[in-house]
């Protein structure tokens, strides 16, 4: 094996060394419970406060508008169920899209069983939600619209400003799952019409198991996890101090990268990867939008072969990739996202996602461009549908 090339940053990112260094004191040394009044506790409280500042600065929120959670999925659940239970006497209609992450979709489906009414908006072939579809779907009893900022499987970035403005006009709360976007795209919640927004540390070089929910001042939600009243009573439980400190540092580093436009490097490499693959491999297509997409995200479907065998062959060459969403790759159904953009099953089965990171190099991309075509070729040679040449 020549190299190790990790191209699955949409699934998770390595913890940045600087982030780990920031976290380390909070395990065994400054290990206090932030709720304790003694010196150990006060030190931990300070650290949590600082992290809240850092995370809020990443999206230009107020620190008091950020609550820390036990991950992105949890934050999605808190936001959606939190609004649903808070507003259920006002209305029970919620709007979402067909290509949301399961943390949003399955939450909505559960609410449907509990007596809520869910509208699932379709998307076009690029995975974009059309603002006019949203406008048509809003009813007098609509209490929440939840549409992700950017898709994890196909990278498409949504027209968040337009979508949010429609919600604002209609007086409906707007939640966006920005797990894939936050830290990678500049987001300013003072400028964008967003009421609640989900983030996860582990998608921006922070640790797993910690997320955050932005809740605009004045927006009321019912807590999902009751207890000691931490995080303004909205997410009880002893704070994951080290994890939160890590998130803070990761957010601060991401703010820096965004300010310095370092994501441009990723975008350029991604474009080389996309262009190279489409050029070198026949019967390949890009999934998602060509330009309105995450700067680090490339995703494809290759005819005549199946995604799992493709990614395991790549794995054997040291390349870490995914097919569809990591969360559902145990399943044999093709991804709901690929079906929603209109791909037939047999094509959707041949999906591959390559997501770059801040440390991905030219050489990494060269390595993939050299090896991926061979792998596709060899699998096609085995396929009853493959071309023979």
């Amino acid at each position: 094996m020549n190299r190790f090339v990790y191209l699955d940053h949409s699934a998770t990112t390595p913890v940045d060394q600087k982030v780990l260094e920031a976290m380390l004191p909070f395990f065994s040394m400054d290990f206090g419970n932030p709720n304790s009044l003694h010196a150990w506790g006060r030190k931990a409280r300070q650290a949590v406060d600082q992290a809240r500042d850092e995370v809020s600065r990443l999206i230009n929120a107020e620190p008091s508008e950020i609550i820390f959670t036990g991950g992105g999925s949890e934050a999605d659940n808190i936001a959606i169920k939190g609004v649903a239970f808070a507003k259920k006497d006002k209305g029970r209609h919620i709007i979402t899209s067909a290509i949301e992450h399961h943390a949003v979709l399955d939450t909505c489906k559960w609410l449907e069983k509990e007596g809520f009414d869910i509208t699932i908006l379709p998307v076009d072939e690029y995975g974009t939600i059309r603002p006019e579809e949203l406008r048509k779907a809003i009813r007098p009893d609509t209490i929440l619209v939840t549409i992700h900022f950017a898709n994890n499987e196909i990278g498409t970035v949504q027209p968040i400003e337009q979508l949010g403005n429609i919600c604002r006009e209609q007086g409906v709360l707007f939640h966006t799952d920005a797990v894939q976007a936050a830290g990678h795209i500049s987001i300013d919640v003072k400028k964008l019409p967003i009421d609640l927004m989900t983030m996860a540390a582990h998608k921006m070089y922070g640790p797993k198991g910690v997320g955050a929910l932005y809740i605009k001042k004045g927006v009321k939600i019912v807590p999902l996890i009751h207890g000691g009243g931490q995080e303004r009573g909205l997410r009880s439980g002893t704070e994951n101090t080290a994890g939160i400190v890590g998130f803070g540092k990761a957010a601060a580093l991401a703010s820096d990268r965004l300010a310095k436009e370092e994501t441009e490097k990723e975008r350029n490499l991604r474009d080389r990867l996309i262009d190279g693959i489409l050029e070198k491999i026949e019967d390949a297509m890009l999934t998602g939008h060509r330009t309105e997409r995450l700067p680090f995200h490339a995703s494809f479907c290759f005819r005549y072969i199946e995604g799992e065998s493709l990614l395991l062959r790549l794995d054997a060459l040291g390349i870490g990739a995914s097919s569809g969403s990591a969360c559902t790759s145990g399943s044999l159904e093709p991804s709901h996202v690929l079906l929603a953009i209109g791909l037939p099953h047999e094509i959707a089965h041949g999906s591959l996602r390559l997501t770059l990171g801040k440390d991905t190099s030219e050489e990494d991309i060269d390595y993939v461009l050299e090896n991926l075509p061979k792998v596709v070729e060899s699998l096609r040679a085995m396929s009853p549908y493959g071309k023979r040449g």
Partner: protein
Amino acid sequence: MYTEKLMQLFMNPKNVGRIEDADGIGEVGNPICGDVMKIYLKIEDDRIVDVKFETFGCAAAIATSSMVTELVKGKTIEEALKVSNKDVAEALGGLPPQKVHCSLLAEEGIKAAVDDYLAKKGKTKREASETRQCAKA
């Protein structure tokens, strides 16, 4: 999730390809479900003298295809029909639960190819096995 044995066969499958003048060809599975196996048999005196496969599918589908061809090669038709999905799975050192259907597909692939051979010879076709729905994880 996969055994080493399975991964080895997936990386270096045996009997890949087609037999141009095959005596029996069986195609099972469905591209909609994400796996299709095509089995080619060369038969002399009711004995399988050569066998090849083409598979569209996951690592388990490819490995079970390869394994089932190994298991039936050189056997009589009657013996080959007794090779069960369990035999295939066992020979691979086991399969994860959500991939058991691949071994079923392999078993069915052989049966379909034998059926094709028997039909061509004008012999009675065995009772057709039902088409299954796509497996669910």
